[in-house]
């Protein structure tokens, strides 16, 4: 029988109460946790919100989350054929599911310090 990894994913939109969803993902040796999250979006639930850009190179540093209570990059964390707990970062504002506000504050659209005239219509 093929092995599976069981992901318990904490989901919520910022401000709302969270729920934990469980997904059984086919396990192949060598996969990353990000591979499993992408699998869930394609095969089970496309509404799962995750943030990543470079996919596998650990170049973009966007896929940071809590995996079994530890802060890790999902692209570097190995998937394992057991129960795994996936949660958003605790110390950043929650946006949606596993997506948190990790942009530097002066690179956000609604950043403080940018309420200048340039933002207003002509």
């Amino acid at each position, binding site marked *: 029988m093929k092995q599976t990894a069981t992901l318990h994913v904490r989901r919520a939109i910022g401000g709302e109460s969270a729920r934990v969803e469980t997904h059984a993902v086919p396990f192949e040796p060598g*996969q990353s946790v990000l591979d499993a999250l992408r699998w869930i979006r394609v095969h089970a639930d496309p509404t799962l919100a995750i943030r990543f850009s470079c996919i596998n190179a650990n170049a*973009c540093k*966007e896929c940071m989350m809590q995996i079994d209570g530890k802060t890790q990059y999902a692209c570097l964390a190995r998937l394992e054929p057991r129960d795994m707990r996936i949660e958003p970062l605790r110390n950043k504002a929650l946006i949606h599911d596993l997506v948190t506000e990790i*942009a530097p504050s002066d*690179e*956000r659209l609604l950043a403080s310090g940018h309420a200048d005239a340039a933002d207003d*219509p*002509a």
Partner: protein
Amino acid sequence: MRPTMQLQTEVLIIGAGGAGMYAAIEAARRGANVLLVDRSLIGRGGATVMAQMTVAAAVGEETPDHWEHHLADTLKAGRDLCDPNLSRLLCEDGVECIREMDGWGVGWARAPQAEGKRGPMRQVMAPGHDRPRCVYVDFLNTGPAVSRTLRTQVIRAPGVRRVGDLLVVDLIVRGGQCVGALALHLTTGEMVTIAARATIVATGGLTRLYRRNSASLNMGGDGYALSLRAGAELIDMEFVQFFPIGHLAPRLIGMDPIMWDPFRYKLGGRLLNGAKEEFTQRYGTADEGKYVITRDLATYAITKEVEAGRGSPHGGAYLSFEHLSVEQLRAAFGPVIDRLAKNGIDLTRQPIEVAPIAHYHMGGVRVDTEMRTNVPGLFATGEAVGGANGANRLSGNAITEALAFGRRAGHSAALRAQGMKSTPMAAATMLPTRTKPLEFNPAAMLVQLQAVMADDVGPFRTQAGLQRALASIRSMREAVGAAMPAPGGAYDAVRIDWLDLRSMLLVAESVAAAAIARTESRGAHQREDHPGMDDRWRVNQVVTLEDERIVLTERKVPSMERAAA
């Protein structure tokens, strides 16, 4: 639905990779105020940050060189389809950009020199170049170093505002001019209009269209779709470059699939078939443990060897460094050897498997040497531009193109902005919104599109396969429709996928349509039913959009406008 927020700027730059950031620096240097936006975080997405090693430029510190030699190699690789004026800009201005980056402390590798003096910039040999010409940053750190350096300069530049998590959905065209853009703010789900005197598309290429690709998530060809819908022309869309030795097996994490390229530059390595024999000589170029075979030929050789039943277990070729010592490997790649060990790989004991992987797009938005499109107010730059590399790009030209073209686009856009008395009003037409939920999984459809492109619009093409792909793409376009899913609020993954499908399907169709029309084999476009180059096809194909339909026309290849100095 009405946009809830409006921004205004002189120069809007879409995409904060190497080209977009250099454009921002240059536009600011010319006194323009700049809004630099990216759908990802600033300086993190795109292709530049992923580059591992080589940047080609005739700096000539170790070996005498001149940009004219680099130009000759670039034109030769492009198989008679380059716009030589754009190629020249890449080769000539590239040298200045490399030196400027050096002054900004990027840290190009240098040869050691005694008495505390800096040695010359190291330059390695790459396939298709007549001499060692590629600068780099150790170890496998070129892209991150280039991104970080440009990001620091962007932050220092006066008048540049940076905004991430902003996905541009459409350009706004009024009275035949581009006057800004409509964007989805990902973290709130709100629509935003941006009024701009000049807009630069710096969104990179389209490699995300393919199942195996070497680029970031955001390389779905957004800029091509934006430009097409705004009335701009695309050129050479049939030419997608496959990198022959993308990592295939065993599964690695935390490593870019292009990582074996720098290994080959520094150490050679041996390319072997499933029976561990050298094989590229059967297809015209012997490998012999040196990195001389060009990308299109290597892609061909590996694919044909696999088809003949002589591939490696996962359907590629072996790349072996088993003849080298641990000391040689460590001297060349230091910490990377530890990262490989963590993945359970000891290169002195085992070969790895490699196979072609979508890597770069030669085609793109048609521009002149000022990076102007045919739509006033709209500029394009970097990989989003077509023409400089013709039918096949030379190794090392992509970052150089990003830097040189980025700088030129920033200059041109600033000039236009400063020549205007006021910023035009930008009232956007909103996309219609669905009342019912999507009846398909858009994340699954993206995977399906990648399979269609890989299977039938890959490096080797046939009429039947291309027709099959075109039919699939068109039926997906129909399913996707013109109405966006109803808003789901903050970071709405379904809406993002739908918007990506809207762009990617349009771009996929333009690649497939151009590939069907070109009944010959040239560079990265290989038609199995039309082998060999045909002089009749020494033309560029231009794609435009008329009433949502892709229209192809032929255009004479431009000639050099002024003689080289």
